[in-house]
């Protein structure tokens, strides 16, 4: 799998390259700012790009802006945003376009190598990976009405779904059976009036659409 990295910290860039290459990924390019990222993506057409949110010249949200441009220009390239802080507003921006092949994680998550690589693969395969912190922020911002109808357990399941996890992943995280998870999910969809969707990924999209949507 071919990856482009955009990260302005030289140390971390080198670390990410090492991490990815030891784990069997191919790093097509590693750059330090948003413009170079867009150029590298156009040139190399990678499967996914790992993008730091805060980059030169402004050191605010250059990565988010670049990701939005990439979504428009080359929607087939998955984007995994990394940031020292996750901000619900940036997540809302990302999810407002197209939720497939998008990830937004705290930078700290790279420390958990296996989970991080799993998230990267999921995003590259067109899935989603949202940081639990983002999800809790999204759940908070969302109009409380329909969410108040969920049981605590169902809210937990909804959160894990929003992170982009599959039924199996949710079952493993909650230490319950997959069929129990499926039952919770059906109940959530009924309570939130979401259109019934088959398959892990389409369900995630429905949830994200629900959370990211206005009001």
């Amino acid at each position: 799998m071919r990856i482009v990295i955009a990260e302005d910290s030289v140390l971390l860039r080198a670390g990410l390259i090492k991490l990815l290459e030891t784990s069997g990924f191919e790093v097509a390019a590693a750059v330090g700012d948003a413009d170079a990222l867009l150029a590298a993506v156009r040139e190399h057409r990678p499967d996914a790009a790992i993008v730091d949110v805060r980059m030169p010249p402004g050191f605010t949200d250059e990565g988010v802006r670049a990701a939005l441009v990439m979504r428009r220009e080359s929607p087939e390239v998955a984007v995994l945003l990394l940031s020292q802080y996750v901000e619900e507003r940036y997540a809302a921006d990302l999810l407002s376009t197209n939720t497939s092949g998008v990830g937004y994680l705290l930078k700290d998550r790279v420390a958990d190598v296996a989970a991080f690589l799993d998230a990267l693969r999921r995003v590259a395969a067109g899935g989603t990976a949202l940081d639990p912190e983002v999800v809790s922020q999204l759940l908070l911002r969302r109009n409380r009405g329909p969410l108040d109808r969920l049981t605590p357990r169902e809210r937990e399941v909804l959160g894990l779904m929003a992170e982009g996890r599959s039924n199996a992943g949710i079952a493993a995280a909650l230490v319950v059976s997959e069929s129990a998870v499926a039952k919770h999910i059906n109940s959530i969809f009924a309570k939130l009036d979401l259109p019934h969707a088959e398959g892990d990924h389409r369900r995630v999209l429905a949830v994200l659409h629900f959370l990211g949507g206005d009001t």
Partner: protein
Amino acid sequence: MAPRHLWQYGSFMASISPVRHAFAHAPWSRAAWRDTVFAVSGVPLQFAGWTILGLPWTLWTPVNVTPILFLTGCTIVLALLVMVPLTSAQRERFWAMLGLDVPPLPGLEGRRWWNTPRDLRVPGLWRVLRYHLLIGPMLAFGGLLTCATWAAGVLLAGIGTYAWALPDTSVFSLSTHAIRIGLLTALGVLLLLAAPWVAAATRNLDARAALALLGPDRAEELERRVEDLAEKRASVVDAADLERRRIERDLHDGAQQRLVSMAMNLGLARETLTGVPDEAMRVIVEAHEEAKEALTELRNLVRGLHPAVLEDRGLDAALSGVAARVPVPVRLSVRVEPRASSTVEAVAYFVVSETLTNIVKHARATAVDVEVARTGDVLGLKVVDDGVGGADPAGGTGLLGLARRVRSVDGTFRIASPAGGPTTVTVELPCAL
């Protein structure tokens, strides 16, 4: 010499006993000579105003109306022209001889002659004219009187010697006029003793007049000072804000990246190393977990300093992030249109995030309501929780620090927290600093 002001003279006078007071003004004292030199040195300067104004009239005394009007006009222009150099000369005199700093009148100092017409608009100009043309000449008479007193004193006190030196046959001999000469000598001594007081009085009046008429008006001065202080404080607050941002940036670029990198390497080691002794693996695992915890702690600390999203997307975005991190359900409503200055935004952010931290620590609340709204030029914040109440601003440093930071931008901070709750924190911040 440090600048001294008039009130310091007053307290100086009051603090010493009458005897020492008298000695302080003895004819041989340093103060007596200083005052005398000062009073006399004022004479030419204080007569200079009228002398210069009178000069054209002595050179040419017209009799017809038109030349008289013309000359009057010239005199007025001349008066305005000489006010600036005369005033600075006087200020120099006060500073050099008394160490008394007469503050410059803003707008008059540093003027060139072609600016003169604009000087008419300087509010203190008429006071300056009054000093140079009215009070000054009177004080010059004080200087002359000082001179005269000294001279008469010396002459009369020395009259005995003069009479003694005369031959006995002369009309004015010591033997024939002993009583008269004795009285005159006594008068001379009295005049010598009085001369320093005349000089001191002249000096004192001159200093008062100069401070009142040459310097800025007291009310104006205070007004200026308030403006000056407000400006300085604003820049201090801005600088502190800037400093917080710099620290945040430094930590973000430095320590955080290093820690992430370290945690990643430890994570990689944990995943990939095989055949490591259990003991060594346990150390790696511990180090990995600790690195992750350090990252979380550092992240929370740094975000409290100044979140980048605040600059970028404003209060709503930054506060929704804060609210989401709090374990208590928070209802957040932010209506700030247009955005306030970055300093005010930073204070508002700090107030809400600190208040939420306090609530989590102490209030045992189950719900919090945060309302941020801008009405005109006022940014109002209101945080209400349903906790146990009893928060006392005097009790901890947290609330005090909040109130202080609010006051630093001229805001108001109120807290109502009856025992049993609810607690309401209300803050108003002026948006225009």
